[in-house]
Every structure is written in structure tokens, then in C-alpha cells.
């Protein structure tokens, strides 16, 4: 196991504050105005073989609905320890969510992918609505989700 991944395992989240070889990354998720109530979002990372690496953010406070973020839930079994300190309110339609995290340099250009699961009340589940490889070159390029996310972009 790589030393940095060992660190991830200890902190459970992928943020490594205070480590020199990390940089602040701003993740911006714009939601389309699909006309529904607040959306639950899970932002998390998988490694090159598709295994769960860690979570970055979970928007939505009621844990009873987390199972509808089905990919994230499947990988974590809904474990609360994966999201301690990195949860916030659900995001309204047409609004945007901005999260800043100190991400290790070694996460980029190493086969890691960022996933976003999304779900809204009485609407379809949208697991892995966004899946993009974490690359230095990909920063600043907006991508569109399948159902709820009009644009997602990460910037250094």
C-alpha cells in the first residue's frame, strides 16, 4: 500500500490537511432546475480497479435516505465513519454546491475516478451520475451529469 493511501485509510476521508504534497481543490456542482426538492449528493473517489478509495462530501442530513445514493452506499455499506465531518445540507434545484478539499497530489493522473451519486425525493436514483478521471489536465473542464447535474468542474 502506498504511504498516502495508508493516510487515507486512517483519516477515512481523502483530505489530508497540512501535508505538503497536497493542494486545495475546489469542486463545484451546479444542479439543473429540474423542479424538485433538495437533492442528496455523494462525492467520492474510486481507484483504478474501481474500488472505493474515500469520500469527499455528502450533501443531505438524513441518513435514512443515504441508501438511495446506491453506488456510494454499496461501496461503504452506508458507514457513517466514512463521512464524519464532511456532510452538509441537501442542495436545492438550480443551486450549486462548492466544496474545497486538500487532495493529495498522488490522487491525480493515477487512475483514480471521481463519482457523484444523486437522488431526489420521489425521483429516480442516479448513482454515478458523474464519473470522471482525476487528472491535472481535466481541471477546469465542466462535465454534464445524466439527470440532475448541469455542470461539474474541479479547479486547483
Amino acid at each position, binding site marked *: 500500500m502506498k504511504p498516502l493511501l495508508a493516510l487515507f485509510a486512517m483519516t477515512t476521508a481523502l483530505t489530508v490537511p497540512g501535508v505538503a504534497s497536497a493542494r486545495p481543490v475546489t469542486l463545484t456542482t451546479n444542479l439543473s432546475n429540474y*423542479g424538485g426538492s433538495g437533492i442528496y449528493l455523494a462525492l467520492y473517489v474510486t481507484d483504478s480497479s474501481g474500488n472505493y478509495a474515500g469520500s469527499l462530501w455528502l450533501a443531505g442530513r*438524513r441518513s435514512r435516505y443515504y*441508501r438511495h445514493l446506491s453506488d456510494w*452506499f454499496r461501496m461503504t455499506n452506508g458507514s457513517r465513519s466514512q463521512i464524519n465531518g464532511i456532510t452538509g445540507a441537501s442542495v436545492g434545484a438550480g443551486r450549486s454546491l462548492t466544496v474545497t478539499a486538500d487532495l493529495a497530489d498522488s490522487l491525480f493522473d493515477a487512475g483514480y475516478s471521481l463519482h457523484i451519486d444523486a437522488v431526489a425525493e*420521489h425521483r429516480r*436514483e442516479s448513482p454515478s451520475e458523474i464519473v470522471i478521471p482525476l487528472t491535472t489536465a481535466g481541471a477546469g473542464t465542466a462535465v454534464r451529469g*445524466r439527470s440532475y447535474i448541469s455542470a461539474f468542474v474541479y479547479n486547483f
Partner: protein
Amino acid sequence: MTRALHRWPGLLAALLLMTLALSGAALSIFPAAYRVAAPQAASGLTVATLAQRIEAVYPTVGQIRRAPSGEITAYWFDNGVPGAAVIDPTTGQGVANSDPNQIERWLTEFHRSLFLGDNGRIVMAVGAGAMLILAVSGIFLVARRTGGWRRWFSRVRGPMSGRLHVEFARIAVAGLMLSSVTALWMTASTFSLLPDEAMPPNFPSQVSGETGFAMADVPTLASTPVSALRNLTYPYPDDATDVVTIETDTGTGYIDQGTGEMLAWADLSGWARVSETIYMLHTGQGAALLGVILGLMALCVPLMAVTGTIVWLVGRRGRPRIRGNVAAGRAETVVLVGSEGGTTWGFAATLHAELTKTGQAVRVEPMSSFNPARYSHAKRLIVMAATYGDGDAPASAKSFLDRLEQAQPAPGLPLSVLGFGDRSFAHYCAFAEQVQTRAEALGWHQLTDFDTVDRQSPQDFARWGRALGQAMGLDLELTHQPVVPASQDITLVSRRDYGAEVQSPTAILRFALPRRSLWQRLTGRGLGRFAAGDILGVVPEGSTLPRFYSLASGRRDGFVEIAVKKHPGGLCSGQLMALEPGDTVHAFVRRNPGFRPDRSKAPLILIGAGTGIGPLAGFVRGNTRGRPVHLFFGMRHPDSDFLYGEDLTGWKQDGHLTRMVTAVSRSQAPSYVQDALRTEATDVARLIRQGARIMVCGGRGMAEGVSEALADILAPAGLTPASLKAQGRYVEDVY
């Protein structure tokens, strides 16, 4: 206590409850609309077949969902573009747009949180809690008002607002309790206070790694009816590690996409099932008819909020302020009042004022505050107690008997009990009597004999006042002006005169029925509902004391009619007899529920003389259902004072009256109505054996004569007037 529990949450939460109820009622329509609109699956259809049909139309289907209404929605991706539609299960074809209704979503958000997030949810939960408290306390209050649990559905009397309040409550209380309890449960569930989370099984660690097993051949899906389906999620295309996820009404499972085998299954927990049922009961989703019923019941809430507020406002005005009420510790005389409506407080205020004038230090307080330890200077106690409903204690006296049991009777502290009531009720002054009996048994000295005041009679009150004065060594003259119900001007439209030739000037006066405004109806003002046999109070010019006349008509007749005889020197009868059409008098209605024909088909024997014919004629006029009615009527001379003579002939022809027997006192063979009864003894006895009900109206002397005659007639059958009275089959209205 129960009353306070009902009043304050009701007043405080009225607005909140109205918003909750109205939005809830609006929301209740949606499940029913979906139930009607959604194409329903045939009863034998399995999930496997449904999936097959949908796949045929939408090959890239990724999810199939069934709502509790039976509506089936399919979701798919075509080249990354999501699509969805409501599906007709017989064809698999999309038939309607699947976007959630925006109005429903808005209403839902408003109903659950007023768009204020978690704080709003808590506010609404408090509203539901208030609703529950109101429902439970209201159930007890209705029982108290009607006089017991078995009479919970019996008729209530009083001003319209109070009656409407109870009627709406009877319709809605069950639904409102269900809605509020389920709402509280759902709030607790939302805030994760209940262990009712539906947990899927752990994702299988091992899958076959193969793909392409047809959904139609999966055994679980072939054995699951569509009615049990909640959700079916397909594996991601080209992901061999993924599985089929099925959610049914019993649990969640993962199925291998290569073999069709069930890899993992988790049953819904008991808690989760209860929560799902509660959700269904609250929203009507899956129980549309119940939802609509609950919605209709919720519509009663605004009506109850309005009527309840009026009841409170009107009741608040009823209690007089007592000026110069001394502290309990300084009072020589302590007056304890137990009164539901507030009229007894008026009497207490009069007593307080008169005693204070004589230099006494007087304290008036509710019976529920009774505490002898505080009465350090008291020389006497006076209890003025009304009776509520079926012999119950009024609200302000509930705890009195318990406190009395615990108190030590002091030798220097004698007690006087005065009961207030209405003799037309079965349990006249029952609570006051109970207080008297207990006090005697516990060894309290009596200041005066136990006495009662019937229907706020100032005469009864003055009589007791003199006895009290005597006991206290005072010259005490209590002149109480009873609270006269707000009277109204009524206009004479016609009069028929009788009896001048026999020195008994009598008239049937007919007044126009004044129109009532809604506010008057709600607050019990104006003439109100009345029926023949009720009482018309007339306030003559130059007096504040009303005189009472039996009504010969009901509101349904469309006029107000009384029979009046001129008394020599009578203030009120003189004024009434002088009325010409177009003239007005001040009047109000007092109900007299004890003097009404019951609703049975048993024969009715009506006995009256003189103006006593009034209400009896009213009963005959109203007898449209052909009930056998036998009238015995005493008069002086048929050519002079045969009141309602022509009407009665007409009513007999119309079948309202079976038989009429008249007795004439000014003739060669003078006969009174009791004599007529004796003549017809055989018939009368037969009718009574058939279950006849007897109603007597007229002067006291006549009523006594009638009672004696009936005693003789009934004796062979082993019956007495008293036994008939006890059965409610013999009622009198005597003046």
C-alpha cells in the same frame, strides 16, 4: 383542567392547525386522482412478465418503479439521455409523463415544513401534537356535556356555535386523531428517532461474472406479483460485477444477472413495516379512499377553529366582574361558586354586593379553589353550585368534593349550600345535593337549609336570601336581576281574540319571525331554534323582569305564536293584549326540552285548558306523520273561548288529530277537562296500555285535577302518574 387543555392549545394553534388541515385536505386528493388515472396491472401479472413487456418497448430500461397508487414508471437511458414514462402494464408502452406534479410537491413541502426546513417540521409537529391534545380533551368534554359516554352521540343544546363545534368534532375527531398520531410518528421517523430505517442487504461479495440472464426467466421475478413490487433496478450495462436489485413490500434483494439466482435478501424490519403503514395511513398513498375521507374530516378543522373561538369569546363575556372582592384570608364570608356557563356567578355577584353593603368582608371564588386553611377569618361558607349535564359537577367545581373530604369541618365555620338548575332536567341540582349530603355526612354545620333556584328564579333566590339573613342576624333582601338573554323586537302580524263574553279576554298573538344574522346564529343571539312547547320570554315596557309564555309554534312554522290571557292588573299581559298588528315587543326564546312530544309513534294524549292549549295546538299542527293524537281541551264556552277551534277542526280533517274531547265549564252541566278524562276512562286506559305519552299544559289547579283523575283511571292497571312520570311518559308544563 380538561377545558383549559382544550381551550389554550386550540386558541394558540388555531391558525397553524388551519394551514395544516387545509393543505392536508388538498393533498388528500392526489392519491385518489393517481389511483383513478394510473393504468392498473391485471391481478395475476408477475414482475417477470411486466419487465419483459417493458424491455420490448424500451430495450435500455434501467429501473421500473411501482407507486402505492399502482402507477408504474419506467426509466431508461438512450445514448446517455435519460427518459421516463408512466407505463401501461398490459402493453409495456409509455402512456403519460412521469414528472411529479409541481402543485403536489409545493403543497407537500408547505404541509410538512412551511418551507422552513427542519424548524418548520418541528413547528408542524407541534401543530400535530396540539391537534392530538385537542382531540382527546374534546372527546372528554363532549362526554361531559352530553352526560356520559353512552350518550356521546346524543343531541347537544345551546348556541349554534357550540352545537356546530360538537357536531364537526363528532364527524372529524377519529380522523384528526389518526392524522395527528401518524404525523408525529412520521416526524419522529424523519428525525431518526425511530429504528425504522429500511436497510438493504450487504452487497454480495461474489457474483457469477456472467451477464445476459433474461429477466423473464428469473424465478423470483416470475413468482412476484406486480402488486408487491416497489422497485426493480437493472445492472449497469457492460458491468459484469453489478446485480439486479429488487425491492418488494417485504424486503430488498440482489439477483445475479448471469444466473438469475437470489444472492442476498433482507426482510423489512417490523419497525420499517409499521412506518410504511403509518405513511400510508397519513398520506393516503396506497389507501386513496381513506385519504379522501381524512381530507374531508380535516376540512372540519377551520370550522371548529372559528366556532371554538366564538364559544370562547361568548363564554368570556358571561362572567361578571366582582368589585371589591376581599382576600381569602380576610373574608368573614367565603362564597364558593361552581358554574359552567357563568349565570351562577351573577347570583354570587349580587350576594357579594348585598353582603358588602352590610359591612361584611366577602370573598367570592370558584369551588375548585376551596381551601379552608386559607380562610383564617372566615365565619361561614356559602356554596353556590350549578349542575352540568347529567348531574355532573361544573368545570369550576370538579375537585371540590375531594378537597371537602380532606378538609376538617370547623365548628365555627357553618356551611350553606344553594343549588342552581332547571327542573325540566332529570337530575335537578344533583351536584349541589351531592355537596350537601357529603358535607352533612362529614359533620359540617348547616348555616341554612339546603335550597335550590330553578331556572334563575329571582324569587327562589330572594327566599333563600331571607333564610340566610335570618341565620346571620341581618335583614338581607337579595334582588337579583337575572341575566336576561339579549332580547329582540318582534312584530305582531295578527291577533285572534276570544273569551270577552265569559269575562276571560284571551288572544292568540302571532308575530313575524325575525331574520337572524349568521353572527346571531353562531353566538346564540336572536330567537334561535325553537319548537312548540318552548318558552317565549317577553320583557314588558317599564320592567326588566321577563314574563314567560309557552310557544304554540316552532321556527319551522315560520312565525312566533303564543296564547295570552289578560290578568287583572297584569303589566305584561295588559301590554300584550293591547298590541295591534305592526306593534312590537321585546322577546327571547328559552328552550324547554322536557316538554316536547318524543319521536315515537306511540299515541299522544294532550290535556289542556285555557291558554294551555297553545303548545298543544302547536304539537297537533306539527304532527304531519299521522301519529295518533287525542286532545282533551277544557274551556268556558265553545262560542267564546274555544281557542284554535277552527284550526283543530281542519287539522282533524288533515289527519293531524285523531280525536278531540272538549269540556265546557259554563253550561248547564259544567264539566272540566278532568271530568272529560273520567268519562273517557276506558279509552284513556287503553291508550296508556298501548304506550301513550301524556302531556299536560295549563294552570296548577287543572294539572292537579288531571293527575287525580289519571290516578283513578290508571289504578286498575297497577300504574300511577308517578310511575309514568319516572318513565318520561307523563310531562307537565304548569303555570
